[in-house]
């Protein structure tokens, strides 16, 4: 199971990298999303997958799942959600100001005014 998950994380990273290398703004935003999903899956996998028990450690419990990675992923998801929202708005604003969503179109002389 861990091996399968590692491969999935790898595929997500691959897709994300491919999308980030393209020139379309939306694809770049989606690419960052894929990469963050890959990272989240990797956290889950690194901490050890399901051991067949709830994440509760009682007196009788002989086995439990580590709850910490899930808490970490939750935090990381919230952060990447916020950053993605900002990135989308930024992309839209850039489109409104410059009239292009192609990264090539953003090139130009470094004029500060």
């Amino acid at each position, binding site marked *: 199971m861990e091996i399968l998950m590692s491969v999935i994380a790898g595929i997500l990273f691959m897709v994300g990298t491919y999308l980030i290398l393209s020139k379309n703004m939306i694809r770049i935003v989606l690419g960052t999303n894929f990469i963050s999903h890959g990272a989240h899956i990797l956290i889950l996998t*690194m901490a050890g997958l399901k051991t067949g028990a709830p994440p509760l450690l009682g007196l009788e419990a002989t086995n439990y799942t580590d709850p910490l990675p899930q808490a970490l992923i939750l935090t990381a998801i919230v952060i990447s959600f916020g950053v993605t929202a*900002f990135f989308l708005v930024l992309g839209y604003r850039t489109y409104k100001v410059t009239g292009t969503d192609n990264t090539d179109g953003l090139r130009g002389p*470094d004029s500060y005014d």
Partner: protein
Amino acid sequence: MNNIITLPILIPLLTGIFLIFFRSIPLQKWISAIALIVTTGVSAYIIHLISTHGILTLQLGGWEAPYGITLVADMFAALLVLTTAMVSLCCLYYAFGTVGKNRERFYFFSFFLFLVAGVNGSFFTGDIFNLFVCFELMLISSYVLLSLGGERIQLRETIKYLLINIISSMIFVLAIAYLYGITGTLNMADLSVKVAEIGQDGLLTTVSLLFLVVFGLKAALFLYFWLPGSYSAPPPAVAALFGALLTKVGIYAIFRTFTLIFYHQPEVTHTLMMWMAALTMILGTIGAVAHWDVKKIIVYNVIVAVGLIIFGLSVFSSVSLIGSLYYFVHDMIIKALLFLLAGAVIIIARTHKLHEISGLIRHHPYLGWLFFIAALSLAGIPPFGGFIGKVFITQGGLENGDYIVAGIGLFTSLLVLYSVMKIFLNGFWGETILSKKEEGKVKNVLLPCSILAALTILLGLGAEWTYVYFEQAVEGLMNPNFYIQAVLHD
């Protein structure tokens, strides 16, 4: 109780949230200034507490380490927090007169305070995942501050900056995941114990290099390709804040991880760091010397300083670390000062091209001499603040036999002096081409710049007085046991 160490994080954070509900701009200005003054006072008091009581720790929510999140204030972090508070206060006052109504209306001050909260949080946290969260708080505020105003160049640079930081943050998460998979803990003190127990083998060293890449990206250590563009886009007050604080948080993280956790294989990690530092200094200096654009010259100087500070760390002796720390604090002050002065020059001359600026000293003598002091201090001329740091770093490097890199450090300081003197000679001296009416109007410039210049002189002249604090900070860095004892056996 050690609850006081939450205050440098909580005061800016809560004030920032509070300000969102007030649209009145004068009120926002007053409240944010008061918040930062209080933060400065509290940070100074924390330094006093640490010097008398040792490292302060706080287990948040009563969850004992290593299970909960710990806040740790050692002397190293506290010195940086105090400097952050003072520098951001000066930048804030400068911003009052220069950022303009458009930015002020769209919650400029809130995000300014959020950024300070994120920086202070990164300094005080004792948990590596919490470090990631504080980093993100700081970065998200910096994205907003960078893009606020919505000019074309700002938008373009924000996209690049955002993309680089998203990717480096994801590598950060990956590195944390690997570290958690190997050691099963995230508390930095506990990580230090576990890594020492199982031995830093090839796998852990690889993970540590992953951290070096992440923090190197944030600190502009060799991986600085994104920095010259993004730091020259925002208005001067914001650029000063970025130049003084953002890269420094990355440097702080490198210091923390490589003195507390991954210090067992210095022949791999610290050697790599040393050569990255050497290349950073060389490439940064080439940029600073080559450009004839006021903003770009200052921006490349940020990169050179990162190299020098990390060189002090990579030598890893108490002498070089004291030098690094002095230079660290000095650099936060001097970079803010240089950005603010360069911003004033650009506003007055209405251009950032050095060839078109001349003779400003006739109408602005005080500004000119402040710039002169800043330039001397940056290059490390005694008696100013940069001198002591450079002396100790070079001494440590020579004692350790790293003659080449120490030589590079000295040689680049000379060229750094040339690069800023270039602004002084061309911009302030020469024929005055602008009459008083043609010049742009600057407000609120002289007071913050004078305070920062006074601080850098004080750091140099008062070295004997501050040495006690820096020595205590370095003692903590050289002996990870102090930190571990304070966190795990409270």
